[in-house]
């Protein structure tokens, strides 16, 4: 629990530039994202003279070229000797004919001339990478959405369309405390941490937003724990290794005073009894409570007073459970009803990505990927057919032999641009469009594979407890019976009455005024 200054998570405040020893995400291609902890240059690393290096299909990228540059920067590949590390160099230096100049992070002025400069040995020359002529990646700040996209599939991941909606409905705002059971892959944890973040906790007792996370699986717990500390989220997320069905949601025996709960568990109904305002009655008969059956009334009472609710006693608690099967939903909803939750709502979310493409159809178009070389409309089809027909007639003319063939060949050219022959063998003159990005009609279509079902989301709200004493206090503070006005929808009768009264009053005034005036005049 450190104060804000030294280490704020890059998820919460990435700052303007990439930093050493911090998380960054490399965008290799559109959907290929790779998280990387940037390591400062410190001697050889894994055989690389450049220090730590990221090797990708698009080239090699030493970390030193990625530190201290603005987020979102395009990074050129560097010349890195990937093959000979750890063994004798087989190649002669001359092989590397076109090594680039050393690339200084942040300023890439001379890169246009990379080809010209030639260096004998890349590795020994500089510990910094040398610019490659081709290949680049982009470096992105860790944002929960990008992080989620880059996640390896450890467990089922709660993706952005789901968690964004869940957090919205759970009212996860700066300062809220949110319980999460089943930390899983951590995608929800990161998004929730961002949502509730309003500063790192300091010693001043002011309550800050917090994620109280529970994970049952031990390996995943350790992995998550490490991840959280790497990401600087330790002050924001409190992770516990626990079976919440059995042991509930208290933190060190104290209530976390949660405002919202997200349960990504196989049997959320078993965890729900730990999430009520008072000790639920049926608990005494449940399996986990060993001495439950033998309790005398007094014992139960005592138990009740010791029982601590994990919920914020002053606010309504919002819950969401995340279950893939309808049977789980039925059980959960039934349990929620019995425990007094209201506004129970079950939804599922269908998210679709939409791709935009240029739909290029036409005989004019050059043969290229994605081009459909068939007529784009009836006119074009007609022109083509007519032309074929003409040619056919030429051919089938009885007397025609060699000469006619030549004629026929010439014909399309003389026909002008209107009649086109199949794209491949025509000359440049009939391919007017060099701007593939402007051709064709802009169309949209769904992605090739869509996620049709992620999970069912059950939402519910548990109002705060309201006792007789509370009610009496409120009633004393706001006694009723002195109502002066009606707000909201008023029925016709009373509206008319109100109007009549108003008019009467006004009328009376007017009459009175007139009287006054008359008297004055008199």
């Amino acid at each position, binding site marked *: 629990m450190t104060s804000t200054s030294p280490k704020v998570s890059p998820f919460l405040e990435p700052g303007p530039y990439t930093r050493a020893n911090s998380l960054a995400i490399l965008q290799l291609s559109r959907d290929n994202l790779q998280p990387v902890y940037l390591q400062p240059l410190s001697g050889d690393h894994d055989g690389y003279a450049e220090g730590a290096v990221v090797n990708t299909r698009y*080239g090699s990228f030493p970390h030193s070229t990625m530190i201290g540059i603005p987020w979102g920067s395009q990074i050129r590949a560097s010349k890195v000797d990937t093959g000979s590390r750890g063994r004798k160099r087989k*190649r002669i230096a001359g092989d590397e004919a076109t090594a680039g100049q050393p690339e200084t992070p942040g300023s890439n002025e001379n*890169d246009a001339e990379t080809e010209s400069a030639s260096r004998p040995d890349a590795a020994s020359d500089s510990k910094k990478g040398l610019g490659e002529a081709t290949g680049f990646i*982009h470096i992105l700040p860790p944002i929960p959405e990008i992080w989620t996209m880059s996640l390896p599939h450890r467990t089922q991941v709660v993706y952005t369309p789901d968690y964004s909606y869940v957090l919205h409905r759970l009212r996860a705002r700066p300062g809220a405390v949110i319980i999460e059971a089943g930390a899983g892959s951590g995608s929800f944890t990161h998004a929730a941490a961002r949502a509730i973040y*309003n500063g790192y906790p300091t010693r001043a007792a002011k309550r800050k937003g917090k994620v109280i996370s529970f994970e049952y699986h031990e390996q995943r717990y350790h992995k998550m724990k490490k991840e959280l500390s790497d990401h600087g989220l330790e002050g924001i997320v409190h992770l516990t290794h626990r079976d919440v069905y059995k042991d509930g949601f208290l933190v060190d025996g104290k209530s976390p005073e949660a405002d919202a709960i997200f349960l990504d568990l196989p049997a959320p109904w078993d965890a729900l009894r730990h999430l009520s305002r008072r000790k639920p009655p049926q608990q005494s008969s449940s399996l986990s409570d060993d001495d439950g059956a033998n309790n005398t009334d007094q014992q139960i009472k005592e138990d009740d007073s010791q029982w601590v609710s994990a919920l914020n006693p002053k*606010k309504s608690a919002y819950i969401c459970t995340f279950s893939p099967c309808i049977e789980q939903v*039925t059980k959960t909803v039934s349990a929620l009803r019995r425990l007094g939750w209201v506004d129970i709502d079950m939804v599922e979310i269908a998210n679709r990505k939409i791709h935009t493409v240029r739909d290029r159809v036409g005989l004019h178009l050059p043969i290229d990927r994605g081009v459909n070389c068939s007529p784009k409309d009836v006119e074009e089809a007609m022109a083509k057919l007519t032309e074929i027909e003409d040619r056919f007639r030429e051919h089938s003319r009885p007397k025609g032999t060699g000469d006619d063939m030549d004629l026929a060949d010439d014909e399309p050219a003389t026909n002008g641009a209107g009649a086109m022959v199949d794209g491949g063998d025509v000359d440049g003159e009939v391919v007017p469009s060099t701007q593939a990005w402007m051709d064709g009609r802009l169309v949209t279509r769904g992605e*090739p594979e869509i996620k049709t079902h992620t999970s069912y989301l059950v939402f519910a709200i548990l109002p705060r407890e309201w006792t007789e004493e509370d009610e009496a206090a409120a009633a004393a503070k706001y006694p009723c019976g002195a109502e002066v006005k009606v707000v909201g929808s008023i029925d016709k009768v009373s509206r008319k009455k109100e109007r009549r009264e108003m008019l009467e009053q006004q009328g009376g005034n007017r009459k009175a005024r007139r009287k006054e005036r008359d008297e004055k005049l008199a």
Partner: protein
Amino acid sequence: MHSVIRPNAWVALKLPSGATRVIQVTPNTTISLGKYGAFPANLILERPYHLTFELEDKRPDENFSRIRVVPPSELYAEIFADEQSPGCSTPAGEATLPILNGEEYSVVDTESGDIVAQSTLDARQTLTQEQIEELKRDGTNAGKNVIAQLMLSHTALDQKTSFSLAKYKLLKTKKYIRRFQVLPIDVPNFSHWQLEERDANKIMDIRAEMMALVGCWANVHYGGGDVFLDDPHATSEQGQEACPSVQPDLLKGRWLVMDDTCGLLVAALAERMGVLSPPDSDDEDSEETNRVTDKPAAAEKQEKPRGEDEGLSEATKQGSDTEMVDVQETSTKPKADPKPKKQKPRPSDFAIPYSQTNTITVVHGASQPNLSFLNYWGFDYTSPNHPPHPLVSHLMTLSWLQLLKPELDTSYSTPPLTASAETLSSWKPSRRGNFHRKRRRYARIRHIVDSTRAGNFSGMVCASTMDPISIMRHALPLLAGGAPVAIYSPNLEPLSALADCFSVSRRTAWTSGVVADVADKSNEELEHWPGNDEFPLNPTLLLGMSIQTSRVRRWQVLPGRTHPLMTERGGSDGFVFTGWRAKPAEGKVAAKGKFKRKKADDVSAVDSEAAEPADGLKRKIDDVTAADSEAAEAKRRKIADATAVDLEVARAIDAPA
């Protein structure tokens, strides 16, 4: 945030019919729910949200209905009964109603002994309209009597299937039961109400799931503790040179917003940044103390607001000039100040009231922004001297003119008035007030414009009726590297046109130097690319762009009757365009992809070989069509300088080649 219902808070009342009424709970008024009855507002003040209340019968000595809290066991009584019945297949109704196997039965008024209804009458519903009206007027037992008697008087009840019976009962319950629930006005509840019951057009049909997506993709969150610029303590003689200049280092956690949803989007973002609600309801401790002090004031019929009004009107009276005068200006008469605890010295005219962090900057097309919905959260944008509210110091607005051509904007370009202390004291208070007001406005606008033009925004959110391409042209250069962009539109077409500006082929052409205008320009110039027909935007300024849509499908969950709802709101689906601001490297950068052809055995032998750069035009496929095109591209590709790690992957792909 919302622990109990505060006096004068806006709340949503949910009625049995499913309708929502949004009202302000003013103490000592009667809240009418139309046909469901009316009750005194004081009965729900300081009570928790989300409880279900039921209107009780009027007591003989009182002229109003009291309300009681309906416990959940009662709310769900029928469902519990269903669950207990074997097989869970019997729907509600049967368990609670007598079995009516053609028996003759009648409903008898307990007091008079009159027969109210008889099953032997011809019509299916034997109660006449008058009788129903009478029952309603007697209105006992929160409408439950009416429902029971309607059920009893239905002659064909035995012919109904159990399902239709359950439906019939539900229908009648919705109509007659006198219950309601109080919900807080937060962004989800408010937008649901606007969308379903009010004018969805006003909020551009933005549904909750889309709002959630926009907020997340734009990475909108608490942007750090408040930082204020030091007060320059400028005297009235100092002009524009005394204005504190923008310090780019301090600017953090700022979001650029275009909002044509009457302020709903701003409210949603402010909620995510923790600046939507006044702090007293936000944190518990001050809440308690505040409540104690507020109590008498609130009980005495809004004493406080009225006092404020008086203060204001008094101020305007003093400055009875043409323009409105800020209360703070009437420094000579401290009694006009509504706040008693005004101990600290007044900030000078050029003190910037805005925080440097955690702010929302709204750019608007009209001369004034439309943020009217913020009124529901106690923030009135038009109010010249706003009572304390977090949005006062975290919301900045400027017009496109002020952003792009500030020199044409009068309020920005006119230098501030100056006057010596003597002249100032010789003026009438009204004139003096105007003088200070204008100077303050100048400093404010100057700060907003300069800090916005300084750029480096943490993200951009847009829900605008304007063309997104034109917005992006001017907004993209203002974003920091890696800053996310999220643009909502109710229609797909504007977004697909925008996405097309960043298409692979456009980007390839741009970077390969085919475009004549581009070749000799520096990155700095290209960031402010003015756009032409072929390249409306600089296609290298945005990464990972994608368009998506989300749709929530609601389900009914009842024992034995679980299924998706039969109908839902249609209309526009809503789409979100997302991406991240990129900082392209200087000079020509070719992508890897197409390589100089090498012999096949070379590829397998590269194991110990370092890379050899290839020349010619390279291409990198990282765009929308990636899914299908990448495989095709990969086949053509010759991996010349694959690294040892990559080689296996590459081989797998390249196998056919």
